[in-house]
């Protein structure tokens, strides 16, 4: 299968990408690694008239420690996240989770920002950055603004990034030696999660338990109150509204969320 026709444009900076977005409006889509977008285009679930390639913008691909945070350029590839010594030291959850994205070939092309902006609720990285409490730096015609992780994911495949904006950086707090874990439940290793749980430093996020990745707030409260992993995990599915599909119905997903949360918390507690 092949995409419907489009015009391919290459941006050489974030500002250039914003200009091109302004010029082409809703007709345009940003292309980074393309590992989510190109399959969508091939299946003709979308047919933008213009693709703006940002994968070669040099100042969008970097990983650097910046105060209490690690700043990661949005077009940094999964592979580079996985192999980053800084991240393994400062935010070990993130490179670990990036290693679950797709397969090796996909990790050679796909980018952190691309995965986050695609905002598939079943994806690995949105869940991880939510647990980490990341901050998103978004650039538009009127300059840059920052969005908290809690506001970034707005719905099924929807984020706070406007049609005329581009995600340029993700800032993740340095968690250092805090306990962390990622529990992903799949039938095949390279599938999207049926349910996944990321836990770090007392924060817990769930993948595929609603239209966006969700914080397990009741669990987090229980943990803060001194509950054991099993006790805290009992409320992991509270407030969630998972889909039903051929892999799992609602009750089973809720059950998985509890089991995986308990396992993640036990691992994180080390």
């Amino acid at each position, binding site marked *: 299968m092949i995409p419907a026709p489009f015009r391919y444009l290459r941006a050489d900076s974030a500002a250039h990408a914003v200009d091109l977005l302004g010029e082409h409006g809703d007709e345009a889509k940003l292309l980074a690694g*393309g590992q989510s977008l190109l*399959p969508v285009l091939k299946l003709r679930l979308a047919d933008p008239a213009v693709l703006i390639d940002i994968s070669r913008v040099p100042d969008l691909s970097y990983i650097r420690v910046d105060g209490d945070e690690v700043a990661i350029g949005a077009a940094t590839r999964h592979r580079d996240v996985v192999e980053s010594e800084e991240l393994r030291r400062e935010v070990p959850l993130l490179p670990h989770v990036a290693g679950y994205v*797709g397969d*090796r*070939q996909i990790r050679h092309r796909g980018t952190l920002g691309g995965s986050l902006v695609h905002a598939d609720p079943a994806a690995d990285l949105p869940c991880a950055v939510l647990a980490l409490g990341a901050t998103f730096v978004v650039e538009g015609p009127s300059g840059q603004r920052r969005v908290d992780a809690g506001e970034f994911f707005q719905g099924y495949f929807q984020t706070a990034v406007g049609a005329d904006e581009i995600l340029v950086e993700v800032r993740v707090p340095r968690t250092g030696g805090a306990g962390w874990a990622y529990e992903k439940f799949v039938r095949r290793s390279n599938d999207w999660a049926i349910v996944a749980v990321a836990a770090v430093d007392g924060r817990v996020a769930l993948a595929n338990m609603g239209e966006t990745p969700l914080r397990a707030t009741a669990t987090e409260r229980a943990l803060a109150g001194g509950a054991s992993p099993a006790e805290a995990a009992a409320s992991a599915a509270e407030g969630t509204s998972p889909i039903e599909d051929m892999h799992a119905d609602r009750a089973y997903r809720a059950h998985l969320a509890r089991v995986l949360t308990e396992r993640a918390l036990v691992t994180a507690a080390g």
Partner: protein
Amino acid sequence: MKIGTTVNGAARQDEIEDRLLLVHYLRDRCGLTATNVGCDTTSCGACTVLLDGESVKSCTVLAAQVDGREVTTVEGLSADGADPHPVQAAFRQEHGLQCGFCTPGMVMASVSLLRDNPKPTEQEVREGLEGNFCRCTGYHNIVRAVLAAADGVSS
């Protein structure tokens, strides 16, 4: 649009349609038909080639995106028809292929895997090839071939 690439060591210039996928560029423009398309969803890995030395799925890369870059297909693995690459030799020796359709992609994925991890365990080989489907071999001999190639490469 115009692109310049290096494919299996040879530089070339092509005028292409913007939406042309890398796999079709290789097959239809470069005449390199070993690389196959096995699915529509970046799942099966039959179209795996090396882009600047790393494995990618060429059905999910635009030809426009490889402008100025280097692509290697299975046809370019063993230079000038010389001795087969150790991975090619091992696939034959261990009977790691049957119908051959997934094979070029499987070989390229294996080459990339061994570059990053020259001494993988069986589990690492299996995980490293999770993006490449085969219906014939049950993966048994593919895994053996990659492990054998690793032994050969390092000895």
